[in-house]
């Protein structure tokens, strides 16, 4: 039951649906914003005493100090609620898709801000630290979703990101620990990820095995193997085999002195910078170079690509292995980028979240970045709210990132269109 004949028409239908702007969805987003504004008024304005204040700390060394921002909860949340409602009304009246997502994003941000002001009432919230946490939680997702983009743009589904994460995290920690050289650790992580990328390509391209099946099996295999090796090999000799250093943050001179943004963006470890560079390189490569055009051609219509002389299978092989390498580096960031040791199943399903981010970002690097940032921010939000003790049970805070992803995927994104030949095996005859 090959999908060769099935995906393309479906994809076309979806593409057509995408062009006909769903004005209903825009209106729905507007109404949603107005509702949020009501929630803000009821929850964050009328329930608080007029004397309550919230303080956001906005400075962290080495940046130029910014004095803390103290706000009256009532007035700030009230003003933000009005702004949110106004943006909602604007969306309802506009009914045009262009710029609608931006307006919605700004409106949602005002609601979040109002919520934060309310949550931090009578307390201090380190806003800069919150952004730093966001960035740290986002980084592995960027690697993971870029890996997905690399594979799927060439027409191969990579559901194995979670497995490549684990392999990269494990080998990165072990090699980094044994050699004492973190760069070797990162290289080992890349090799481990690339190896499982190669396995995916080998089984999916040479033997035309269903790509989702290979992916699921690779995840199961990597999970089992790293669990087994952790118990059997690492645990007996933890100090030699599983105690790597971690990459220290590198401050970029001058830029790190920028208020607020400096410590967030320009005082991070090498993984964060690498993710940023890869993001730009992959995006430029895919959409601005000959290589990218070929990759996309192979992903959309392999037969047409073949007739103009592109070797479909080698393009796919190369991309899937490269995708694995990227995911493997992302995996290494879990161990030698932050925690400093490997523990069983430490990636905790984030490989799947990265996959979701890629789909949610419509198979585009910067779209995936947006989705990853949203998820990273909700992770950060959750950990800070837990500290602020806002009276929401911690399991509900912990599920927030996932609920937000579901809401966004179904409310804002809707039907997405994968590359037309994604997942379809290819043979020349």
């Amino acid at each position, binding site marked *: 039951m090959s999908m060769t004949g099935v995906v393309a028409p479906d994809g076309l239908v979806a593409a057509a649906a995408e062009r006909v702007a769903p004005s209903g969805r825009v209106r729905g987003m507007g109404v949603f914003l107005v509702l949020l504004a009501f929630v803000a008024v009821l929850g964050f304005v009328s329930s608080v005493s007029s004397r309550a204040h919230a303080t956001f700390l906005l400075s962290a060394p080495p940046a130029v100090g910014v004095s803390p921002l103290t706000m009256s909860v009532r007035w700030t949340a009230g003003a933000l609620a009005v702004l949110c409602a106004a943006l909602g009304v604007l969306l309802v009246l506009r009914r045009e898709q262009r710029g609608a997502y931006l307006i919605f994003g700004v409106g949602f941000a005002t609601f979040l801000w109002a919520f934060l002001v309310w949550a931090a009432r009578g307390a201090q919230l380190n806003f800069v630290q919150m952004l730093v946490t966001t960035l740290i939680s986002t980084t592995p997702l960027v690697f993971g979703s870029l890996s997905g983009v690399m594979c799927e743009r060439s027409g191969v589904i990579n559901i194995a990101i979670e497995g490549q994460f684990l392999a990269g995290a494990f080998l990165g920690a072990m090699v980094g620990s044994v050699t004492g050289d973190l760069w070797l650790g990162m290289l080992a992580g890349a090799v481990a990820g690339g190896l499982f990328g190669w396995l995916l390509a080998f089984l999916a391209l040479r033997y035309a*095995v269903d790509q*989702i099946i290979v992916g699921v099996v690779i995840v*199961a295999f990597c999970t089992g193997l790293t669990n*087994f090796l952790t118990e059997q090999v690492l645990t007996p000799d933890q100090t030699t085999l599983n105690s790597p250093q971690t990459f220290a943050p590198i401050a970029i001179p001058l830029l790190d002195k920028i208020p607020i943004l400096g410590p967030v963006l320009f005082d991070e470890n090498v993984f964060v910078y690498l993710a940023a560079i890869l993001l730009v390189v992959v995006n430029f490569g895919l959409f601005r170079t000959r290589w990218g055009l070929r990759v996309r051609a192979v992903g959309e219509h392999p037969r047409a690509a073949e007739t103009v002389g592109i070797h479909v299978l080698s393009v796919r092989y190369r991309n899937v292995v490269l995708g694995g390498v990227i995911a493997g580096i992302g995996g290494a960031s879990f161990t030698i980028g932050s925690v400093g040791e490997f523990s069983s199943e430490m990636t905790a399903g984030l490989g*799947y979240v990265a996959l979701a981010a890629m789909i949610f970002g419509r198979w585009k690097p910067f779209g995936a970045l947006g989705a990853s940032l949203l998820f990273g921010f909700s992770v950060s939000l959750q950990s800070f709210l837990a500290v602020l003790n806002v009276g929401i049970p911690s399991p509900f805070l912990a599920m927030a990132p996932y609920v937000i992803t579901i809401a966004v995927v179904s409310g804002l994104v809707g039907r997405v269109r994968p590359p037309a030949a994604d997942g*379809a095996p290819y043979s020349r005859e």
Partner: protein
Amino acid sequence: MSGPGSPRRQPRPWTVPFRRLAQANVAVVTGLSVVSALVLGAVLIVVTTPSVLHALGRIGTHPGRALGLTGASVGDAYLAMFSGAIVSPSALGHVLSSGHGWVTLFTPLSETLVAATPLVLAGLGVAIGFSTGVFNIGAQGQLIAGALAALYVGFEVKLPIGIHVPLVLLAGAAGGAAAGFVPGILKARTGAHEVITTIMFNYVMLNLLDYLLSVSPFQQPGQSNAISRTMPATARLPHLFGSGLRVNAGLLVALAFVAGATWFTRRSTLGFSFRVIGLNPNAGKTAGIDARRVTVLVLMLSGALAGLAGTASLAGTDFFLSSGYGGNIGFDAITVALLGRNRPVGVLFAGLLFAALDVGGRNMQAVTGIPLDLASVIQALIVMFVATPVLVREIFRLRGSAAASLQLSTGGWGG
């Protein structure tokens, strides 16, 4: 093979079974896949056991010792696995010599059947999704939802056992179906991809479980830990072979659903429309099948089976819920469905095999100290080989060209 009218010499009759065996059919490919996976598992044991590696390093001077140690370490591990999952030779010897110890003899088999029950049920659910082109990764969350609903009906309703147990099962199925309904309706209404939503719902349900375990009415009164109240005796699935063996009526439920699923996919109208949508959504739409409705129904049915899986282990052996309930069953269900080629009877056998490896793995860890995770490595390798029949054919030089047609398929991202 040569047909009746072919001029080639007919094979001698007695060789026919062997020739058939050498061809690539499902049973042979699966069997050889298991063998290959076990061999690779053995390699893994050898290269991670320092004493064996050390002996192998001096194979030139002491070949006997090296080979002996290698054989012993692998042999001990697999023997422990076998005796933990099927039958222990020592227990068999004891029964044969004394006539007592039947319970001990059958305990491994009973444990394997107990472990297989939820795997088969959840695996059936995933398989029904696969064959309809719906990729349900949410069995874990649906299992939790089912178990929660079953537990609630278990401790909240007072009924005699004959009515209570079926009601608990029904509640479990309904809970799972409700958890499957949400991604289903989201996909049908908004097009949100079920791979994303079902994965995310797993985490939502895990956290919801954590919350419910810490509040009334689910939390065990007087407990500060996250432990649920226990299933009352009237809501527990009865044991099948006396109280000494844990195998219970949950197994019968699983078997009934294997039979039911076979009937459903082959004979029922709804099952037929599921299959059509799975094989070719456009043809289905042209034939007037409402693909959206099918999506919702499939996810509900799939969720209901996962919910029953959770209920079967809750009401059969565990009797209370704790954080992370169900463990890997939800994800193993995916590999079980793949190994079973999405066919109900295949899922049954795949579930039994996976359960035997899991249960045997526990015994292996207890006896030899080799981590039970070896079992999951072997499971993944089995599915990898089964999914690549052509590779198996090449390795073992099987005849016949049937291998390619044994290829498994899910159907990609679809639309």
